[in-house]
């Protein structure tokens, strides 16, 4: 009994550590919502003039027709861009990116991939991202920047001509935009799966601890 009481006091004395600060949680979920709107409306737009020999099933598109898809896409883009920009600025300014995502070393990634595949990758300390997480998160942030830049290039190919030049030409920007979307979808599948496998990480992303 005595030792239990001590433990209770200890818990009261040291409040549980915040794993994910509030700004990360808020921006993360806004981003997830905006991304899903962008992807579903983007599929609608893709279907109007497919780049490849397939279309996305109608049930998974937003907007009902091309015009509706475009309205959703160009509305959700503000949410995505403003939130993404705020996340990037805060991530750099607070040193979070440097602290949580770096360094990323080839040996570290190899080691953690091997550990993950043999189910030996621990998640005891949620405040430290392993190398697989670092690589995936840093990678998807870069992809997020690329998909916004290629989208802006296609939206304003005359006013933002230098952005088009960055990708080569207009049709290439379209392919870049598509492949970034594909990368985000692939990330999303793995990411959600892993979050469900380690529910306490999901909990931390929702309530912070």
């Amino acid at each position, binding site marked *: 009994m005595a030792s239990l009481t001590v433990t209770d006091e200890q818990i009261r004395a040291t409040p549980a550590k915040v794993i994910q600060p509030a700004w990360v949680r808020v921006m993360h979920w806004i981003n997830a919502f905006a991304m899903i709107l962008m992807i579903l409306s983007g599929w609608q737009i893709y279907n109007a003039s497919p780049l490849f020999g397939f279309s996305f099933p109608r049930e998974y598109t937003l907007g009902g*027709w091309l015009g509706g898809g475009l309205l959703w896409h160009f*509305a959700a883009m503000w949410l995505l861009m403003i939130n993404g920009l705020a996340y990037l600025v805060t991530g750099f300014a607070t040193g979070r990116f440097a602290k949580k995502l770096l360094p990323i070393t080839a040996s570290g990634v190899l080691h953690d991939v091997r550990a993950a595949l043999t189910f030996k990758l621990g998640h005891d300390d949620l405040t430290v991202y392993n190398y697989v997480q670092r690589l995936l998160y840093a990678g998807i942030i870069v992809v997020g920047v690329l998909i916004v830049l290629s989208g802006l290039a296609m939206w304003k*190919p005359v006013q933002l001509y230098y952005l088009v030049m960055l990708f080569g030409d207009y049709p290439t920007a379209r392919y870049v935009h598509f492949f970034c979307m594909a990368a985000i979808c692939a990330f999303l599948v793995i990411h959600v799966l892993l979050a469900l496998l380690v529910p306490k990480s999901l909990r931390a992303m929702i309530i912070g601890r």
Partner: protein
Amino acid sequence: MAKRSFLIPGVDKRLLIKDSIKTMPDVTRRRFIAGGASLGALTLLTGCDVVDSSSAEEMLKQVSKFNDAVQAFIFNPDALAPTFPESAITKPFPFNAYYDLDDAPDVDGKDWKLEVRGLVDNKKSWTLDELYQLPQVTQVTRHICVEGWSAIGSWTGTPLRDFLKLIGADTRAKYVWFQCADKDGYNSPLDMRSALHPQTQMTFKYANEILPRAYGFPMKIRVPTKLGFKNPKYVVSMEVTNDYKGGYWEDQGYNSFSGS
């Protein structure tokens, strides 16, 4: 407030209707913007009915108006659309409309006259021969369709701003509104700053040949700083006006500025 709950997309009758809407260019389409399968998917993903269709549609319209303003704000009248060498021209240049080529307007060039209306000093109509006398320039630019495809073409004609000056148009007016010979009356408004852009052209030739029927004979308005649907073909009249008169696609929900 029409609440919808499509828990299993695919069983709702409204979804069946949706399959036909791409070939149905009429006002009923407007209602599909926020409705149907789209919301089904969102409902499935989020587990709740987050978007009420009529309020979502209202929100989307407001954002689209906001996007018009943003685009007008970042529009630089001196920024030129990139031009390309003749070798870059897309062959064949695609024919694109909401009808087949067989149903495209077949205008008789001898009878045709360009009507000029609204805030202009000289409202005389112009025959094709008269228009052909005006100085012409050629541009090789990229046509970008709202659907996402694009193609490079060569267009020859008179800069619209020269013509507007010639007829004494009030260039402080907000729009030049074009009407076309299409049987459902295609029309489209062009904001004045885009109308005055140096590359905006009254086009009479494609690839140095008299504009063929497929590309808008007798006259097309080529605006390389706008999406294709804002480059009207088979033009029969232009009106300089301060009123927003809407447009064939704009009224159905395409963003009205749709500038590049």
